[in-house]
Every structure is written in C-alpha cells, then in structure tokens.
C-alpha cells in the first residue's frame, strides 16, 4: 500500500499482501498429466488444507511451489514477488518423503539446516534448542537421528522447517505417522503459526482433521483443482436442500408431503431431501402440526461427503 503524507511516499507492507498465489501450473511426466492448470491462493494468517487422493497432484504442486520442480508452465508468487532464490529461502518446507541426515545428531542437524537457510550459527543453535524444547525432544538433542522413533523424527522434521523463522509454511503430509497426542500438538503448532500471520499450506488425506483444523481448503483431483475456498462457505454452498427435523415426543414422525424424500431417520430426527419446488416452510409447518419442533435446520455436508461428491 502506498500513499503520500506531506510529500513523503510511505510504503507500508500489510500482511494481507503476503499471499502465496499459484497460477496455471501445468506439469506432465511423460504421457501422464500430473497438474492441469492448477491455480489457488494461500492467504496469510490462515491454515489452508490441501486435499486430494493419492496421485492427485498435491506433492507435485508443493514441489513446484518450493522450486524443487520446475513446472512445464505456470507461476508461483509470494506477496506478489516471483519465487526467486531469496524468496524460496523464506519458506519452511517439509517434503513428503521427509529428509534429514540419518547419521547426524539431532541438534547438529538443525543447526546445519538453519545455517544453510541463512541463520547465523549461534542464532541457529539457540533456535534449535527452543524448537526441541517446544517439541519435547530436548533429551534427544545429542542422539543420532535414525535412533529416534519415526514420530520423533517427524517432529525433528517440522522443527527443521521452522528453524529459520519462515514467512510461509509448505508442509506435505505433516500429520501422517503421528499418534493422536502428537497430531494435537502439531495442529496447535500450525494454528499458532497461522495466528502469527503466516500463510500455511499443508496436505493431508485425513479429511476429518482438515475439516476440524483448516480455515480454507483446496480440493484437487487428477491434477485439477475442483474446489477451493473457506471450508464453511464451501459446505454451505454444496449443502443442497437437505434438512433435519426433530419432533419432540414423536420420534417416529415422518413428513407426508409431496416432493419430500426421507433419507435417514433416528433419535436425532428425520433427514429429508426437498425437491426444488418445495418450500422448506411447508416442511416446518407440517412438523409443527405434529408437535413441538425440537430441531429444524439445513444439513451441511461433511468434508468427506463433499470430497466424494465433487469427485464424481
């Protein structure tokens, strides 16, 4: 944002401008099209879940973002700037297949990676110690990496992605292989980074987790982005005309209206699908005639349902 105050040009970088934008990525491996015009944004201060099946193109997209892969076409920009080397060096990256030196000691490893990413030695050492403490790994600092359990190696990996105080996080499957407690911790850490104003992009195929954790999602299937946006808005948008009605004292109640199909029934009430020409108010009136209405509302699809639906 630029404006003038008494003849002086003031340039203020607002965090809003530090959006990661991906535009028109295309990538083929031989005959196989891995990415077909992939475009989306990762906004600052928000957790963005990158969801798709195996081989959908998540990893290829992330590799293109961090510059490990040079896509056939398309552009990646961060805060409007092209991904030059110095911009790439501000990314905290966690590759899908992980990547640390198996025979190096945990602390030495983090310090080395920090220095590679431009942190000076003493600052890197201090930060590494802090991160190990944050991930409850202080007592393993002097151990050789491959002696740690896979879950702990994963924590070291995320510490490595954070060692240089990144401006952007790109994490490929950060939750895979973690136990429930570690998943909680990881989720909290990611939320913290997002709350601090970073754009955070992470891929996962654990839809319930993404639904619980993310602000935005990007749904990718066979190399194409099929849905993108705020999770709640997407669910609302795809909700359709499904309603749940509960009549108190009469759990057996079924609406007998034309154009209303019963989908499901239980103690929670009855879930129905309305035809396009049916007014929901008619359904409510019918329920009220049967007794006191305990619940009446639209049913939003879960992310899993959404995923299954857009995939068709």
């Amino acid at each position, binding site marked *: 944002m630029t404006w003038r105050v008494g003849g002086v040009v003031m340039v203020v970088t607002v965090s809003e401008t530090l959006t990661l934008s991906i535009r028109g990525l295309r990538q083929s491996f031989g005959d196989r099209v891995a990415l077909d015009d992939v475009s989306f944004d990762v906004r600052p201060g928000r957790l963005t879940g990158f969801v798709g099946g195996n081989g959908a193109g998540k990893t290829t997209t992330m590799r293109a973002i*961090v510059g*490990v892969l040079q896509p056939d076409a398309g552009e990646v920009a961060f805060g409007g700037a092209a991904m030059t080397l110095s*911009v790439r060096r501000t990314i905290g990256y966690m590759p899908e297949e992980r*990547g640390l*030196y*198996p025979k*190096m000691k945990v602390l030495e490893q983090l310090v080395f990676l920090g220095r590679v990413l*431009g942190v000076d030695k003493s600052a890197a050492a201090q930060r590494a110690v802090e991160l190990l403490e944050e991930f409850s790994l202080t007592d393993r600092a002097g151990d050789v990496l491959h002696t740690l359990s896979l879950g702990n190696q994963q924590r070291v990996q995320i510490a490595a992605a954070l060692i240089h105080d990144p401006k952007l996080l790109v994490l490929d499957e950060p939750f895979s292989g973690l136990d429930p407690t570690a998943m909680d911790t990881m989720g909290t850490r990611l939320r913290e980074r997002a709350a601090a104003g970073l754009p955070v992009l992470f891929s996962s195929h654990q839809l319930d987790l993404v639904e619980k954790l993310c602000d935005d999602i990007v749904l990718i299937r066979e190399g194409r982005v099929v849905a993108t946006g705020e999770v709640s808005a997407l669910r609302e948008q795809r909700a359709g005309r499904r309603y749940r009605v509960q009549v108190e004292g009469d759990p057996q109640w079924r609406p007998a209206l034309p154009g209303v199909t019963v989908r499901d029934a239980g103690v929670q009430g009855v879930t129905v699908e309305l035809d396009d020409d049916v007014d929901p108010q008619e359904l409510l009136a019918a329920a009220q005639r049967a007794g006191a209405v305990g619940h009446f509302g639209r049913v939003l699809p879960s992310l899993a349902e959404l995923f299954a639906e857009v995939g068709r």
Partner: protein
Amino acid sequence: MSASANRTALVRIVAGREISVKLHDKGFIASTIVFLAVIVAATVIPALLSGGTPSYTLGVTPGATAQATLAQQLGALADDERPMGIPAADITIAEVDSVASGLADENNIAVLSVDGIAATLSGRDTVPDELETLVTSAHTQTVVGEVASDAGLSEAQMTTLTSPQPPKVVLSDPPPTFAVPPQLVVLVFGFLFYFAVLTFGLSIAQSVVEEKQSRVVELLVAAVPLRWLLSGKVLGNAVLAIGQVAIIIGAGLVGASLTGSGDIISQVAGVSGWFLAFFVVGFLMLACLWAVAGSLASRIEDLQSTTLYMQVAVMVPFFAAILIQDDSPLQRVLSYFPLTAPLMMPARLAQGTAAGWEPWVAMVIVLVTAIALIGIGARLYAGSVLNTSKRTSLRAAWAKGAGA
C-alpha cells in the same frame, strides 16, 4: 537473520559439514593414522638400520695383533678416505690366549688367529660381513707387505703395491644422482594419490547418494542452488584429500630429516611440489564426476556399479605410472594425456627426463580438461540428483540437467 543467499557462505557451510562428518568418521581417522605410521616407519626404520656404524669386539690371539690393528684402522677411516668396498666398523680388540678361550667369552663376536700366512677368523654360527671383509683386507695387506719387504722394496713402492690407486671413472653424460631410486618415489606418490583419490572420490559419491536416499536433497535444493551444493561437497572433500596427502608427505619428510637423510629430503622435496600441484588439479578434474556417480545411483547399493568407471579412471593411471617408468615415447605421450598426466608428468620430473617447460604444458592441459569435466559433471549432477525413484541414465541426466 537474512534470507538472502550468499554463495561463498553457503558453499563454506556445505563444505564444513562434509569435513566435520569425515573428521568424526572413525574409519577415516584410522586410515590416516595407519598411513602416517607406515610412512614414518618407512623413512625412519631403514635410516636406523643403516645409520649406525656397527661395533664388534674381536678376540685376537698372540701373533694376530698386526692384522687386527690394521683391520681396526681400516674400519675407523672417515667415509671419504675409506677405499671402495671397505665397510665402516668400530672394532675393539681383546687379547685372548687361544681360539677356544676367546670364543668362550660371550663379548667376543669372533677370534682372529694367524699361523704363518694362513689367517683364521673363528666365529660361532656366523661372522659379520663387515668384520670378514676388514680382516681379509688387513691380512692381504700384511702378507703383501711382508713379501714385498722380503723382496727389498722401498716404503713408497710398498704403499703403491698394497694400496693401488683405483682407476678414476669419468662420465661425459652423467645421470642425475639419486639418494633413493626415482622408481620408489613414483611408487610412493602414486600409491598415496591412488588411495586419496579413491577414498575422497568415493566419499563425494557417498555423500551425494546419502542426501538423495534420505531425501535431504529436496530440503537443500529448495534453499540452495544445485551448483553451490555441488561446489561445497567437492571443496570439502578436496580440502580433506589435499590435507591428508600434505600431512603424510610432510610426516615422511620430517621423519627423513630427523634421521639425518638430508639427501632424500632435497630429492623428494624438489619434486613433491609438482606432485602436489598435479594432485590438486587431478583431484578436482574427477571430483564432479564422482558426484555424478553418486547422483546417478538411487541407493548406496547402486554405488558399486555407478562408480565402476571412476575406479578404473583412477586405477589405470596409477598402474601406468608405476609400470611405465622408462623414458619411452609412450611415457612421454601419457605424461600429457589428462588422466595420466597428474602422475606421469611429476614421475618424469622425478626421473629427471622432463624439461623445465613440460610440466607447465601438461598442467594447462589438465586444467582445461578439469574445467570441461567440472561443467559436464555439474550438469549431469543437476539432472539426476532429484530423481530419487530409480537409477538415472547418463542420457536422461544430461537432458534434464540443461539449464539447471
């Protein structure tokens, strides 16, 4: 903290890791120590063995004193006065009554007895060569002297007869004199280089494939250009290789100087400069190709096959240098061929068969080749190091490495 990338700093950090990993590697430390021990032993032990003048106590029966005293004098002569073939020895004379009583004394290494013109040197299981030679010489002089004296020759005539002046040898084209055979020097340097290039070449390849196999390379490549990464790797290992070779050569020279073999030092120190210079350039010439051998592999196990040609490229020059040591056209050609020049040219210098300008020309040839191979190696490395799934073919690596 700054995100901007400083090439020098990054190359140094990557090189620093290579060095630190190697310095913590027990195998590397052990091999260096063994090498040092062998070199020091090789220079010090022969010097100790040949250095001192042997001391003997010789039992002398009555009547043999004249010969014994002469042998003692001959053995004690200074190096430049002693006639050809007469060894140095420090002989102590012990007068004994008889051969039997003399040998009964453990101190006497042998007993000399003379009966007329027949002299007997009696020992136990053996008699030292030096002693035998000195006594033989002394006895001959004594006998000749007595005969000549009986014949009435003058003192001067007698001296001429007993110690004739040997003919003076004059060469119109003398070969350079060497304290140690140049063949030996070439063998030692050749073996040292062969070992160092193989060790550190393999170490580069291993380091590359380790990063590839553990996928660290993906983290590094996101933050460091591939060529900087490669430079750091090559430099780190080059520093170690050159350091190790320099330390070993230095230890050898120090060992030789401590034992007083000054002539060896002046001979070896004179050529070791060229040996080292060619080693540095020769190592750098192949270093990037070693990295390629690593990046073509996808697992440590693949290294054996991907480094095969590199091992041959190191082994052939080594055997060529130690086997082709005569001043032949083949040797002259090979001393300019880039692969063999780093050993062959200094070998010819060590043998004194190369003119002063020749190493410079060979050096330029090797340097130009090195620059070309580093370029080719960097491209192949860039084209293959990110292909983690399977072994990469050279052709695919070359195509993919374009512009990387």
